[in-house]
């Protein structure tokens, strides 16, 4: 990779730094998965029954949305490497739109639960017992933290899109695009585990 003459740049260090950050993210969610395992072990029946109430269809659609968005941002890196700026911008736009679609689905999904008075701290939920309180507490917290990551990823990709369109990111300087891609894939990776653990294991 060629270096510009004026400014010092170290793409390898940027990428390594991004990976180190992703490790802390993995451990953050990992801690929550530890909590999930213990509570599930101690309240297996309640978790089993409560998981039935989640909408598997929306969950599946959202999984596929995230998988497609992961492939489009991966392809946008190929596009920028091949100096196809137009296609890179198009693919970034598709990725951002899919991320927004995920959030819209999540909004309706959470809305359904809240309409039925199921949310953390709800008195109706408290009446259903400790297991349900723990299941929905973890559900709202983990999917909420994940949704926050989606929002951060969307902002990150928005900045990257602006930089691509102003030629600040190009075929010989695209490490920021790669890093936003890595972040987005991590968000996808976490969802790959959240989806079966909350929606499928019933």
């Amino acid at each position: 990779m060629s270096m510009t003459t004026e400014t010092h740049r170290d793409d390898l260090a940027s990428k390594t730094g991004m990976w180190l950050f992703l490790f802390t993210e993995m451990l953050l969610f990992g801690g929550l998965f530890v909590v999930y395992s213990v509570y599930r072990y101690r309240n297996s029946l309640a978790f089993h029954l409560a998981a039935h109430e989640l909408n598997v269809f929306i969950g599946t659609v959202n999984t596929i949305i995230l998988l497609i968005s992961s492939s489009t941002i991966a392809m946008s890196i190929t596009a920028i490497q091949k100096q196809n700026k137009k296609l890179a911008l198009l693919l970034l736009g598709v990725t951002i739109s899919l991320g927004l679609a995920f959030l819209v689905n999540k909004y309706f999904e959470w809305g359904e639960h809240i309409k039925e008075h199921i949310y953390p701290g709800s008195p109706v939920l408290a009446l259903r017992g400790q297991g349900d309180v723990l299941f929905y507490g973890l559900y709202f917290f983990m999917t909420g933290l994940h949704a926050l990551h989606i929002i951060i990823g969307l902002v990150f990709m928005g900045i990257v899109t602006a930089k691509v369109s102003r030629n600040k990111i190009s075929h010989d300087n695209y490490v920021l695009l790669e890093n936003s891609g890595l972040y987005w894939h991590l968000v996808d990776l976490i969802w790959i585990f959240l989806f079966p653990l909350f929606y499928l294991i019933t």
Partner: protein
Amino acid sequence: MDDEKAHIIPYRTFLYVLALLIALTLTSVAVTQIYLGTLTVAIALVIAVIKSSFVLRIFMHLKFENKIYSFAVIAVILILCLVIIITLLDYIYR
């Protein structure tokens, strides 16, 4: 790394992997609707692990990067698994 030309992954590779990932997702949904018991958990998690390995290796370019990144990722995953196993052992044999 500096003089090396960056590895360009063709578009179709990503499309193949995407098709595979969607197929695996639908498989895990279908399987968990049929089977019951602890086998369901195992199947759903095994499929999730297969899916994440494709995301890590292809989408996140680990297959084409310096091996040190792959080792570091494996180390983090092992630490997580160890913590989960040790914590569960504590709860199961308490």
